[in-house]
Structures are given as C-alpha cells and as structure tokens.
C-alpha cells in the first residue's frame, strides 16, 4: 500500500541529489569528456548523430525559422568577450554542445507529466510517449539543447527510400514531442543487456556514443564513471572535477577540466577540457 511505503521510506524519499559518491556503489554512471583542444569543428560527430538517432532533416525554410533538430550542434565563437577583434588571430573557438545530462537538471523539475526524469545510471531521459509538448523543459534549459518536433517529420523528412536508413533501435518522433541527446541510450541498453546476460559489467570502450565513435581526432571520450578504471573516470579524476560539487577546488595547477554553467548548479555529466593556444605563436 502506497501510504505505508511513504512512511517506511520517508527518509530515503527526502534525499537530495547529487551527493558525494552517489554512484560509488552503482553499476553505471554514464559520463563524457570533450577535449576542446582536439576538436577541429569538422561536423563528423553531428552527422554521425543524424545517422544514429534518426534526426530529421528539416529543410531550408524550417531551419531559417530556428527549427533545426541537431541534438549535437557545433558552435563557433570568435571571442570570449563582447567585442569582435579585427582578425581571429588565434583561430575560432569550436564547442560541441549537446544535452549535458545534468545531475540536477532544470528540465526535469518543470515537466508537468514527468516525461523527462533521471535514470539510475545518471542519464537525463526523455519519454516520448509521455511527453505532451508543453516545452517547459526547453524553456528552462540553460543550454537550450532540447529540440521540439514542430512538424510531423515522419511524413516529410524521409522520402522513400531514405526511411530504409532509419535506425530500428530508435523511434521516429511524431509531431509535438520534445527530444534531445540521449547519449545514444539504445547502444547503452544493448551493451548493458549483453553484459547482464554474460553476468558482468559493461567493459570500458565496449560501448560508446555515435559522436565519440566517429570523431576523427578522438576529442570525445565516453564511458562509465562508476567504473573508476574507465577512461572517463580517470580523466575526471585527473582534472579534479567532482561530479556532485558546484565549486571545483583543484589542488594542482594547469588542469583544463571545467563544466559549462557550473554556477547554475546543474551538475552536468559532460566535462570540457580547455582549448589550448600557444600564446607565443
């Protein structure tokens, strides 16, 4: 009976997340690292994302109205401040931006129907068939990485036989639902199921996201942060970035790791490594 459940587990129901070592005993906590010094802005990852996740091509008109559906977009900035220099002497600044899978996600709180919520393995999931399209999540997302199906794309985005390319592991979203980067959850699920049947945990490098797999410079690293030996876990540790902290006290100098909008206390699961430039050049 629900009431007894409420009373029995009251204390556990009152826990706030994220907290220190939240995933210490968990099997999985998916995380990512993006090295902005390696990223060349070549768009391989974005195209891979289109291919893997059945992203619709919206066409010129819709794109011009700002209705693009790229879960993963590469932003190009010409400077940190508000003034444009005459020449970009140190090149452009590329930023692959996708859902940051926040541990304390602003979108999750406001969804009226709980279509977006946090999974035990630390993903910010989006349940398409629960979504009613209030777009409150997008309104409250500081990164603006949630994309809404403004049109009935299944009817217009894949003229025959393009639909044959669609990935059967990923649903094609109908009009009126919100969608976003899922860390290629279909791949994760498959790998987890495989591992479960073998009675083990998913090994590091066994599964990765489409973007990370494609990236010609391997700027993107993906993996299981609950496994301290995994590539991502090592990098996070090396960069001394604490998942559950909103102010990173770093012991060492010269570390490049940072999270975007840390001060908003969204606790993103994506770690960016600062872009490096030779100032003498």
């Amino acid at each position: 009976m629900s009431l007894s459940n409420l009373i029995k587990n009251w204390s556990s129901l009152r826990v706030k997340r994220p907290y220190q070592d939240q995933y210490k005993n968990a099997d999985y906590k998916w995380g990512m690292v993006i090295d902005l010094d390696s990223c060349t802005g070549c768009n391989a990852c974005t195209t891979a994302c289109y291919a893997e996740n059945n992203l619709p091509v919206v066409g010129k008109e819709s794109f011009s109205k700002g209705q693009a559906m790229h879960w993963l977009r590469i932003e190009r900035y010409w400077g940190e401040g508000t003034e444009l220099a005459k020449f970009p002497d140190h090149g452009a600044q590329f930023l692959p931006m996708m859902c940051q899978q926040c541990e304390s996600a602003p979108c999750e709180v406001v969804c009226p129907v709980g279509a977006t919520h946090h999974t035990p393995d630390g993903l910010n999931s989006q349940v398409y068939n629960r979504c009613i399209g209030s777009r409150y999540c997008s309104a409250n997302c500081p990164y603006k990485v949630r994309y809404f199906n403004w049109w009935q794309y299944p009817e217009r985005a894949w003229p025959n036989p393009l639909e044959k390319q669609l990935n059967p592991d990923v649903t094609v979203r109908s009009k009126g639902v919100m969608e976003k980067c899922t860390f290629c959850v279909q791949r994760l699920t498959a790998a987890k199921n495989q591992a479960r049947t073998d009675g083990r945990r998913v090994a590091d490098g066994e599964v990765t996201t489409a973007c990370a797999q494609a990236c010609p410079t391997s700027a993107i690293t993906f993996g299981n942060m609950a496994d301290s030996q995994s590539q991502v876990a090592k990098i996070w540790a090396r960069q001394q970035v604490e998942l559950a902290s909103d102010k990173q006290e770093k012991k060492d100098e010269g570390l490049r790791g940072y999270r975007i909008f840390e001060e908003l206390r969204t606790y993103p699961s994506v770690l960016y490594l600062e872009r490096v430039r030779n100032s003498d050049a």
Partner: protein
Amino acid sequence: MIDRRDDSDIEIERRFVPKAKDINEDIAWAQINKDVLRSMERPRPMYWVIFAASLALFGFGVFCEVYQYQTGLGVADLNNPQVWGLYIATFIFWIGMSHSGTLLSAILHIMHADWRKPIYRFAEAMTTFSLMTAGLFVLVHLGRVWQFYYVVAYPNERWTWPNFNSPLVWDATAIGTYLTSSIVFLYFGMIPDLAICRDTATGFRRKFYWFLSLGWQGTDRQWANFRVAYLTIACFLIPLAVSVHSIVATDFAVSQQPGWHITSFPPYFVAGALYSGCAAIITLFIILRYVFRFEEYMTMPILDKTCRLTFAIAMVWTYLNLIEYASVWYGSDVYAKETLIYRATGLYAPYWWAMNFLGSVVPFMLAFKSMRNNLTIMMVVSLLLNVGMWLERFMIISPTFAHGYYPWTWTSGWWPSWVQWGIVLGSFGWFSMLFMLFCKIFPTVSMYEVKEMVYHRSEARKARNL
C-alpha cells in the same frame, strides 16, 4: 416608504440622471426588478451584429487551432528558444483579467462596501469567463493536445502520475480550484435573483430559472444559511485568488531563466492581475451602463470609486515593476541584468517602453476627477491599460527567450505567425461571446442586493432625520 411612482415612460427613453447623483434611495423595488429584467429581454439587432462578429472571430481562432493541431506547432513559427510565444503571454493576460472580479467582489463584500453591489455580478462573470479563456491557452500551446489529460492526477495501472514538482501542475490545480470556486460564488450570489427571474418568466425560461433558483423563496432560514455560506466562500476566495496568480508567477520565478528567476514575481503578478482586471471592469461598466441604461445603478460615483481603486493598484504595480528592475539592476546576477538591458535597448525596446508608459503613466489620467467623469476618456484609458498589461506579459516571455543564458541561441528577430495572432484574437471572440450570452440569460445587476443597498441607505437617512 415605498411610493408608487408612475413609471410608464421608462420603457421609451432613459431617465435623466445627474452625473454626481448616487443611487436613488427612493427608487421603487419593483422598479429595480423592471429595469434589470428589461436588460434580459429580447436583444436589439445591434446585439446580434456584435454577437455574430465575436462568433466569427472565435470561428477564425478555432480554424487556426485546427490547422495547428493537424500540421503541428511549426505553423505558429515558434522555435528553439522561442518556445511559447503569444500563447503563454495571452494565457497570463486572461488569468490576470480574471482576478479583479471575484477578488474585489469578495473583499468588498467582507468590508460591507455597498457600492460593490450593483457591479459585482458582471465582474464575477468576467472572472469566470476569462478563466475559461485562459484555460483554452493551456491546451492550445500543447504540442500534443490530445494527451492533455496526462497532467491530471488520475489513478492508473502504470502508477504514473503528473510531476507534482512542476509549476504547471500547480497551475492546473490552482486554476481548477479557482474556476470551481468562482462559479460557486457567482452562482450563489445569483440565487435570489434567479428566483426573481423565475417569478416573472414564463414558459421554458420559467422552468430553467425554477431549476436554477433551487426553490428560493426568501425564507428566513434560506437567508440565514445563504448569508453565512456566501460570506465563507468569499473568505476562501481572497487567499485563493492571490495564490492562483502567485502560482502563475512561479511558472517563471521557479524556473532558472534570467529575467524570470525573480523573488518579487508573485506579488508583481498579482498586482498586474488586479490592475488589468480593474481596467476591464471599467470597460465593461461603461459598456453595460450605456447599453442597458443602467445609469441609475451603475452610477458615476461607483465608477469614480472603481477608477480610484484602479489608480491605487496601478501605482502598486508600478512600484513592484520598478523594484523588480532595481533589484535586478543592483543585484549580482549579471545574466538577469543583461536581459533587463536587452529589454530596454534590444529588439523589443519599443514594446517594453510602451508597456511602461501605458502601465505607469497613462493611469495618472485616473487621478483627475474631470477625467474620471468623462466616460469616453475612461473607456479609452481602460482599454489602453489592458493593452499595456498584455504587453507586460509579452515582455516577460519573449525577451528572456531571445536573450537568455546561452548566447548561441540568442534570436536576432522573432515574430509570431498569423496562426498565433488568429488564436489570440479568437480568444477575445470567445470571451465576448460568452459574456454577451450571460448578459441575456442572467441579471447583470444584483437586484436583491441593490434593494438591500437602497433599504439600508434609506433606513440610515431616517435615523439621521430623527
């Protein structure tokens, strides 16, 4: 005390009522019934013309919605980050509109301010209908309207519930409660008048009113229970009304966006709501006074009081508006400050300045008696005030989307499509349609309370004369 005056001439032309004259204590009660019931008689052609117009407007709105439903929200030219556009802005506008009616009526009722009596009926009707209009926008803005019931907490085998953390769910609950209570309040206040209608009506209408008046005969027992119940509901309604718009404010205040994440939003919203509501009351007051020849009941002194009240509220709103700017300006939230500056200087600057002018400067017209006495000016002013209030809502929504945290998604230009405008206009059609129907089916002036009013006043006068 009741002198039989020959009132054969009232049917033909309006009696002259001097401007300053308040309601006449010696007016025959039968006369009150006659005058009010007359407003419910067979409408004049002009009524049908206006009704047809609003019906057409509503029809167009429905067409736009159907088109949007079929094609997807893309036709509204919404985008990322401009995800809400006019829909939510107009939603807040209507919610705000709904506030004065019931809230003022309740407050004044508790305070025994008898000048409320001739005007509260239509004000409460206004509340109810603007709530029903606001409700439409909640549905209209959904991507999948056909799944709207997911927001309702109903038991199901999957153990899925709405997300009670979401201000939208609070909204749904609050608005539901408010609508129900408002309707109960409106209906209760009407029962004695419905009895009057029953007693005068014939045929089908008689049956109709007979049913609605719940066997009211004005017995002492009925009056006693009625008084207590009505007062209690009034007491409930005051905090409720306040909570409703505070909750609408939390839709924004609870979210994290710059320009929304502001502590003073709830009172700010409530003030804005009362403000637009009062303005709307003035508008309808003037219209009804003219159309139904209610000069004797909706007297200038009452309008005067309403105007002064509106002015006071306008100043409260202005104050809250300014401290919102101030707190952002002196606060350490650089993003919020950025957004504020953007509002004043960016793409939306004209609307923003217009909003501030209409909201804070125009109401000073209400400060002058000469202005307050001029119905035409008051009509224009009240309409302007509501334009300003609509702009306020628009200025809350769009600029924050256009200039939020994330520079990459700053929009350089965004304008709603005709579909959005169509649905917004449609909502006005829908509202006036409902209101016009109400005026013909129910008494827009509370007859029994006007009687109470004149009775008590004449008693008081007698007491003075002794």
